[in-house]
């Protein structure tokens, strides 16, 4: 009989005004099916709202999805909002229609991983798991 494993809690959010949530919802479900508890914020959230929800829900990682092209301003804004709220230790992952040359810019701005269409979901799940483990190890 297996011991209960620690359940990772993550938040999937859509900052900005983009309503295309097919990708976000797919990732949310794939994470659930991989054993995560996934708090979903719905569409059209401000970076501050996402940060506040992440803190109240005590998640170990935040995933953002954006297809509108506003990622260069909105993803870093979520990282900043978390910092401002004293939760800079919660890692942020991002995905969406993001040109290659933006990926490096986003990583410089503190987004730990960036995924574009066609990435296998197993790779994304593994990244969330590792992000959660790192965050949780740093808690004590």
């Amino acid at each position, binding site marked *: *009989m297996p*011991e*209960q494993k*620690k*359940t990772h*809690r993550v938040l999937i959010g859509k900052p900005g005004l983009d309503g295309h949530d097919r990708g976000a919802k797919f990732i*949310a*479900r794939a*994470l*659930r*099916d*991989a*054993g*995560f*508890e*996934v*708090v*979903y*914020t*719905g569409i059209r*959230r*401000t970076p*501050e*709202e996402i940060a*506040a*929800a992440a*803190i*109240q*829900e*005590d998640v170990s990682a935040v995933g953002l999805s954006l297809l509108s092209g506003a990622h260069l301003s909105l993803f870093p804004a979520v990282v900043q909002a978390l910092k401002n*709220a*004293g*939760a800079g230790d919660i890692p942020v992952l991002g995905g969406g229609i993001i040109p290659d040359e933006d990926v490096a810019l986003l990583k410089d701005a503190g987004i730990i991983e960036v995924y574009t269409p066609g990435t296998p979901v197993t790779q994304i799940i593994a990244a969330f798991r590792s992000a959660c483990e790192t965050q949780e190890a740093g*808690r*004590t």
Partner: protein
Amino acid sequence: MKSEDILKGLRDRDPRGIGRAISLVEENDPLADEILSSLDHSLIDQTTILGITGPPGAGKSTLTDRIITKYRSQGRRVGVIAVDPSSPISGGAILGDRVRMMGHALDQDVVVRSMATRGRLGGLCAAAGAAMRILAAGGCSIIIIETVGVGQSEMDIIRIADITALVLAPGLGDDIQAMKAGLLEVADILIVNKADCAGADTLAMDMESIARESGSKDKDKAKVCMTVASEGKGIDDLIAAIEAVDASHRESGERRTRRDRAYDLEVLDWALEMIKPSIIERINAWDHDRKGAPRRHAAKLLEQECLRISE
């Protein structure tokens, strides 16, 4: 993080401290004990706990959102525990109730915590009860527990509420039939949501007749409220009904009775939660032959466990 830090966070109403505290309890962390025993119990006694349940699609989250708005306008600090089922296969869960409450996301005095049922041995009363205690210690004077009204664990969880409201809506058909049996018995308030939709009047008449029969010597008759949560209609009347039920429960001593019962349920759940790891350990370690009645083995195992504890 140390328990003093977390307790200080609770007193300071720090959202991070509240969030961490609930997680530690949810995970059965060794710190949980310390935190829970050091909470300010006077605050817990002063809190009102409102349970909202109903079938999927009845509009619980939208209604909760409106109730939050109303209580916030009265200056009260509101806590919400939104419960969603865990997947029995993966153990994961999608916690989506927050979506409808995001309008309050930046309000420091609305604390929302989503909670999955997880594969618990006991009911959910232990975990939800602990979350409720933490939110109360974190300054919430009203705590709403929202849960889907299907299945046993959801039924149980509602028993830790002081007041229970059952939300129904026209057009949900069979779900309502299933609800009638169990939850109607414990509901203090029957809410007919989407009261502007076809079929609402029939549903309301049904509810009225059930409400008339629902009273007993131990329990007042249920009140029926009509709402259109998506438009904010009927919320004032609903809040008035909640207050009336609360006042009546306080006067009759029902509130105390329910709190005592809830306390006992929490104790039972905790006991089951606590015993689980060592039972699992014993099963794993025990070189038993898997013959005969499993029930006998279980009894033997418990006997050994009790011996260990008493030593």
